[in-house]
């Protein structure tokens, strides 16, 4: 059986860490809200998958990770890439298909990557990045770098083969990788419970492969941070992989304009009442943090989001010259002489 984490209840966090956590939450919330607004203004082509409502998972882990730990995430990857320190302008511009996009417009919303920040990519085929994250952990183990690979994915991902292959390999090779299942109760539109026989789709399966696994309140950033710290250090010290199943909920639909009508109103209401940002804000106020301190953080973030939006909008569209660039390591795309 999986253990339910109860770390933060007892633990004491210092104020600077708490304010950094709050700042990360605020950054994700406001960036994603802006991405949504830009989509409504028809400035974002293609698709996008927001992390509104799920911010605490990305924020808690990023706060706990060493600067050179690897992040692997899914198409729902704006939050995970941003929170590792990737350029906000670069990310916003990528959503808008601009030349100053972090991938120069060649990847788009579902593939955000910032290798300089060890954000090793957003993967859009369900499950593919789990074995890849295990591979990065394997390299770290062999090279003795002490890096840990952290791999985020959804509940729906636990039913695809790559999930099972990756967990088994990670366990049998004792790889420094932490798998993080963001269980938001739904795949795209189908409730995970209707297609999965076990109660905890990530944690229950992980146990079967010999991974340490546990369940955490994914809307409580202190708790996520605490558990992340524990299991990152364990992996770093050679203790092997773990799977953390973080229970959370999307504020909105799966992607773009999905109105998410398939979710019962009571369920939505009860989760929105546990919005991770409202939750954390009131905890910090209770702990005696000044309201103004939090407001100042929010307005600093807003300024940054505004600046990123302006810089993205002002840039020219993605450069057509790059169509033929970087298929190969020599920078080009030649397949013949």
């Amino acid at each position, binding site marked *: 059986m999986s253990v339910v984490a109860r770390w933060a209840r007892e633990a004491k966090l210092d104020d600077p860490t708490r304010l950094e956590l709050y700042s990360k939450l605020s950054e994700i919330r406001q960036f994603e809200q802006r991405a949504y607004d830009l989509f409504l203004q028809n400035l974002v082509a293609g698709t996008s998958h927001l992390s509104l409502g799920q911010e605490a998972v990305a924020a808690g882990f990023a706060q706990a990770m060493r600067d050179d730990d690897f992040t692997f995430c899914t198409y729902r990857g704006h939050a995970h890439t941003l929170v590792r320190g990737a350029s906000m302008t670069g990310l916003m511009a990528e959503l808008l298909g601009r030349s100053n996009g972090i*991938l120069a417009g060649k*990847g788009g919303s579902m593939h955000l990557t910032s290798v300089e920040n060890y954000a090793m990519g957003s993967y859009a085929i369900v499950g*593919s990045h789990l074995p890849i994250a*295990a*591979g990065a952990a394997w390299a770290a183990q062999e090279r003795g*770098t002490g890096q840990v690979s952290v791999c985020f994915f959804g509940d729906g991902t636990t039913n695809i083969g790559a999930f099972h292959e990756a967990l088994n390999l990670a366990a049998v090779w004792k790889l420094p990788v932490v798998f993080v299942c963001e269980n938001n109760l739904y795949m795209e539109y189908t409730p995970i419970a209707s297609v999965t026989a076990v109660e905890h789709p990530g944690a229950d399966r992980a146990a079967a492969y010999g991974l340490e696994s546990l369940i955490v309140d994914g809307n409580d950033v202190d708790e996520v941070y605490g558990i992340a710290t524990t299991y990152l250090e364990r992996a770093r010290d050679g203790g092997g992989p773990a799977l953390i199943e973080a229970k959370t909920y999307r504020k909105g639909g799966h992607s773009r304009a999905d109105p998410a009508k398939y979710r019962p109103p009571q369920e939505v209401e009860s989760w929105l009442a546990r919005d991770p940002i409202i939750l954390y804000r009131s905890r910090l106020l209770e702990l005696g943090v000044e309201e103004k301190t939090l407001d100042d953080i929010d307005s600093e973030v807003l300024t940054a989001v505004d600046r990123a939006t302006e810089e993205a909008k002002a840039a020219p569209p993605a450069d057509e010259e790059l169509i033929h660039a970087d298929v190969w*390591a020599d920078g080009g*795309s030649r397949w013949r002489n």
Partner: protein
Amino acid sequence: MAELTYREAVAAGLAQEMERDDSVYFIGEDVAAPGGVFKTTGGLLERFGPRRVRDTPISEEAIAGAVMGAAMTGLRPVGEIMFSDFFATCWDIVANQIAKTRYMTNGQVTLPLVIRAANGGGLRFGAQHSQSVENWAMAVPGLKVVAPSNPADVKGLLAASIRDDDPVIFLEAKSLYPTKGEVPDGEHVEELGRAVVHGDGEDVVLVALAAMVPRAIEAGERLRDEHGIGCRVVDLRSLVPLDVSTLLESVRATGRVFTVEENPRLCGWGAEISSIVAEEALYDLDGPIVRITTPHVPLPAAETLEDATIPSASRIVDTVVKEQ
């Protein structure tokens, strides 16, 4: 020069590169202690130890994924997919992830990796253990595709593939594993994207790859001796990159082109060759381009059926005589 089998040349190529570069690792199913189901990797475990030569679970996605994740973070790994048919179980990792990640990230990620596999027919294994999948890989931008026809090339092209900073699908012709050939002593590294021409006949050029090369060479000798038709054989050696200039030189020298392909007919690499020749050397041709391929059927198992399905030296001879 030492005489090695095609099979031994695999281990020789891997050993040469593992000796030279500590970041070269090798993983796959039954590759370490058992030395590979085709006995291609024997001795590597003893020589390089259990960390650098490692058995995996039967998890093709995990093999391909691990190789990718390791390549993007500092290793230069080689993975083995036991039979190339099994690429179908990890094609997502190969075609969607490995092939595209450098491009999609605007060059942020480099993937110096090789995935080797035993490819093609000849062992009577039936339709799921005998396919020639070079055209699967050739169709995906971002993959290099190499397929050697002799032991020296196995070693030299494998070394070049490992040193290459791009992902390489390295297809070994399983019917050639027992064949022997001279392999240069000392370090041997070939160049990707350079075809080799055998013979200097001026009547026809046979364009071939991997296991079809020795058959084309044999057919060429018979065509010369029995029918007075002068042949040369172009061994493409790699489909991506493709040595079009060597190909077109031979087309101009002969005026007649026959492709000899082990893959099933539709969208085989010879179709691309034909298209290039038609676009760029049509007026050098004295007759139609002819493709000699495995027909568009799954490969049957029985000896007689398999032999009648994959192009043989006799079929090449008959086709050339008839069309010439």
